[in-house]
């Protein structure tokens, strides 16, 4: 079985028919579709939503070792549903994919896990919160979390402590993804302090820094004419944070969206075209690894540059994901994810 072909089919499941039913709350296959004015309930919504096609628990962290060396870390659990139902054996139509990575200035370590739902090998429980695939775990109460992952060449074990509130993107967590109205539910915890140990071929390295956990689920993340996205999560030295994404379209235009987050967790959403992201330089594989990002409404005009240009995720669905440094009107660090460049 060619797993790759199959996963591609899974993770980009938006069909033409799905669009037409968007307004009715479910699509043609019976999946629920995000609706405006969401009412989140926690901790339940930290858990899985099997009636939506896709969902993720996406953690990225900018870390520093005692000697000042910067590192990046990723822990992601994706859920992808073949049908809008759950189950407790192999027939459960829920598939799970975990990605873990550590990026150093010189190296990029990646690992991937795949698992079926229904048998206990992978899943997410809301209360007490636990997200896991195989031996990889993210568990705790969202004020504090423990996180671990392992691979043949690296492993890590981290402790996280929340230092601010959850924030909600778009319209109170209803995040529009295209001019045609595709949307997702999207909230984040961008205020985690994180510390722990990276086990790398170079040795064990004690690190600390800050982490950003994204939660997003939907049944129709991209429009037909959208081919990929560039996603920025930036933490400025002045305490402000900014999330921005740019969806690439086949007509050469882009759809952008941004959220400005004050140190207190007050958010200001920005809709299409408020954020402008322009590639400045590409790496050997034609992936843009230096960007000019502007958000005039917040006087942001920064250059975002990859810590390691080769942070390519050699996973079933390959993409670029790595830590960045920010210079210009605001200085800081952050994470950049780019898909659609294969």
């Amino acid at each position: 079985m060619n797993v790759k072909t199959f996963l591609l089919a899974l993770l980009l499941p938006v069909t033409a028919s799905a669009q037409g039913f968007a307004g009715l709350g479910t699509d043609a296959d019976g999946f629920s579709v995000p609706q405006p004015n969401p009412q989140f309930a926690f901790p339940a919504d930290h858990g899985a939503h099997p009636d939506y096609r896709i969902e993720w628990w996406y953690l990225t962290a900018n870390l520093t070792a005692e000697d000042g060396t910067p590192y990046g870390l990723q822990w992601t659990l994706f859920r992808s549903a073949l049908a809008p139902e759950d189950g407790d054996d192999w027939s459960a139509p829920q598939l799970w994919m975990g990605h873990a990575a550590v990026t150093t200035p010189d190296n990029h370590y990646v690992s991937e896990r795949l698992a079926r739902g229904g048998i206990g090998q992978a899943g997410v429980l809301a209360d007490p919160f636990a997200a896991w695939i195989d031996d990889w775990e993210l568990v705790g109460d969202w004020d504090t979390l423990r996180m671990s992952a392992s691979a043949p060449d690296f492993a890590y074990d981290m402790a996280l402590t929340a230092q601010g509130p959850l924030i909600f993107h778009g319209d109170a967590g209803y995040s529009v993804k295209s001019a045609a109205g595709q949307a997702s539910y999207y909230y984040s915890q961008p205020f985690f302090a994180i510390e722990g140990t990276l086990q790398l071929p170079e040795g064990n390295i004690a690190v600390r820094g800050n982490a950003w956990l994204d939660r997003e689920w939907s049944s129709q993340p991209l429009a037909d004419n959208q081919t990929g996205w560039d996603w920025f999560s930036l933490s400025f030295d002045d305490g402000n944070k900014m999330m921005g994404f740019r969806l690439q379209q086949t007509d050469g235009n882009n759809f952008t969206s941004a959220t400005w987050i004050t140190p207190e967790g007050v958010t200001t959403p920005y809709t299409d075209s408020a954020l402008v992201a322009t590639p400045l330089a590409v790496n050997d594989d034609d992936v843009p690894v230096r960007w000019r990002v502007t958000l005039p409404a917040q006087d942001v005009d920064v250059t975002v540059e990859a810590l390691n240009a080769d942070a390519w995720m050699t996973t079933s669905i390959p993409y670029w994901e790595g830590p960045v440094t920010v210079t210009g009107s605001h200085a800081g660090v952050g994470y950049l994810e780019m898909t659609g460049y294969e």
Partner: protein
Amino acid sequence: MTRATLQALLSHWWRNPLQLFTLLAGLALATALWSGVQAVNAEARASYDAAAATLGEGQYDRLVRRDGQPMAQDTYVALRRAGWLVSPVVQGRLDGVRIVGVEPLTAPGGIGPITPTEGADITAFLTGDGQLFANAETAAQLSGLSVVVTPEAAPGTAVTDIGVAQRLLDKSGLIDSLIVLPGQPKGRADLGTLAPDLTLQPAQGGSDIARLTDSFHLNLTAFGLLSFAVGIFIVNGAIGLAFEQRRPVVRTLRALGLPLRQLIILMGAELMIFALIAGVIGVALGYVIAALLLPDVAATLRGLYGADVSGTLQLRPSWWLSGLAIALGGTAIAASGALYQMAKMPLLVAAQPRALAMAAGKRAVVQGIAAAVLLGLAGVMMFTAKGLIGGFILLAALLIGAALALPLVLDRILAGASRGAKSVTAQWFWADTRQQLPGLSLALMALLLAMSANVGVSTMVSSFRLTFTDFLDQRLASELYVRTENEAQSAALLQYAEPRTDIILPIQSADTQVAGQPTEVYGTRDHATYRENWVFLQQAARPWDTTFAGQTVLINEQLSRRAGLNVGDEIALQGTVFGIAGVYGDYGNPIGQVVIGEAVFLRLYPDIAPRNFGLRMDPDAVPDFVAGLEAETGIPATQSVNQAGIKAISLAIFERTFTVTTALNILTLAVAGFAILMSLLTLASMRVPQLAPAWAMGMTRSQIGRLELMRAVMLALLTAVVALPLGLALAWALLAVVNVAAFGWELPMYLFPMDYARLGLFALLAAALAALWPARRLARTPPADLLKVFSNER
């Protein structure tokens, strides 16, 4: 010049179409038998490879339970949660099809010979009723299931999702084995603490089935090679004769200034063209032979080893290319002697009609020495040969040595007969027969090989059949065998059978490894059924008493030979050490077996409940019992097999096994008969000058014809007399050396005089038939031709 030379050389064949036919037919037959056998082997091997690829056998380590039973699915999840990268597999049989359930998300790449095709729908594969992937043949057996046909699937195998397989095989929540992926993560927990009942089986190069069946294929190959050798004898005879007859042409060509080198190249090229033509015909015939044999071979392999082999033949380039190569190679071997002689021949040596005989006289010494060396080697190997290769070297030395010695032995016999002859006609008959011997010797060698192979193989087969039938009588002592599907059925059966039978003998087994050999352990209830019927090859004092008391075990001959274990040695089962109290014959079983007492079995393998039961009762009561069982307990009659039924099934499997060898036997004998016919036909035309004086002195043509016929029958008879001891020696080598190495058991040898007599009769009949036409031709030679012998200067 080249063209003219080639024309001159080829003209010989146009004038002697029979020789050309002999050459082409001999070569085509040899190639056909060889490549037919190879095609069968190739098909079977491809099937094993496809089956192995289904689960990546030989590539990955595996985790299985120590007692060979399925593990709980939770064990899989626990291992994954502890960092072990393993992928679960469920296997079983459904309607005779091997169902393999894999988990596509965790399985290593390349597991399951399936790529997404148009029929592949991920959602359909993973959820709902699921999908099975199988080839067209297998798909037809799986009615009522959603099957995607893919030619890449292994024969007799359907691959599906693990969840679907669990449901189809009634193994909900169970997993048979775990594939251990390469590249395990850091910090994974220790297997011993996680799952102490699991054991890691390291990946072994080559699949188990391929190794188990190696001996079977080696047997087939040996047969193919034997047939090929017989064919090459024919070709060698034809080429030798043609070169002999073309000496005048060669002399003339060389006298005209044709360089020797060019001549040799042209003659070689000419033969290679013939070889190519014959090769193509042979490969085509081989395909037909293979297609006819394959269903029987497939049935044999399934019956003997549980190996699934496709019943339909595919044309593989490697196979027909090798067929052509062996035709060319065979021709080269057959022609090298003749070409070498041609190169060495002094320019002006006259073509001599007796050249063949005289050359043979000189060759006799070399041949005699070679025969003596080979037979000597065979004699030594009889006592020292070990293993399959040794066995086959012994067979080859024996056969070739005897074949080479045959003309010398016949020559001696004829010389003796000629001395004893009183009348002139008789003296001439013997002398003339001796004179003809060199020309016929190749054909007679072919007959010798065919006959002795026939005697040898039929002795082996019949000995096996006899032993096996006796063995079945001992082993299948219970009148009825009942299989149960679950605990409830077992309990119902016991309750129903208790008052109606003499005794119930539960049959419980566990798969394990003993001394590195795959082995089944059987737990046996103490009863006279075993004590009275089983025959030991080796035994300590009171083996059953100590075994039922839980102190000792009994092992089968296969395990004894393969692991070098004998009575008095010790083996460990689940960590407990037992002494061996007896070794029993276990014919037809490819793997090792250990018998232990029921109580010990329950202690060592507490999770295994018996699902098969032998019931002792009045044989006449069996039909009523089965009907009553179905009515009272709902256990269907299909789960009951009476003794006669099992015997019939077992014997049927073995009958099919030997259909293959019998077919090859008949083919070899036919080729030998053909060789005699062709030799006699070619000799007949050359013999006119030698027969003319006999005719001139008053012998009638029909008398000469009758004598010709008699001569052929007499030579065949003498060959048969030599073939019998050779065949018996062959049978002994097959039973005592090859069989032990191939299957792990030694068979007692029985003799079948009636069979040999019938075979001898067939050989004489074949020789007589082959001689009939040439003899008639001689009898009808126009007197003018005979007269011409005296007038023509040759």
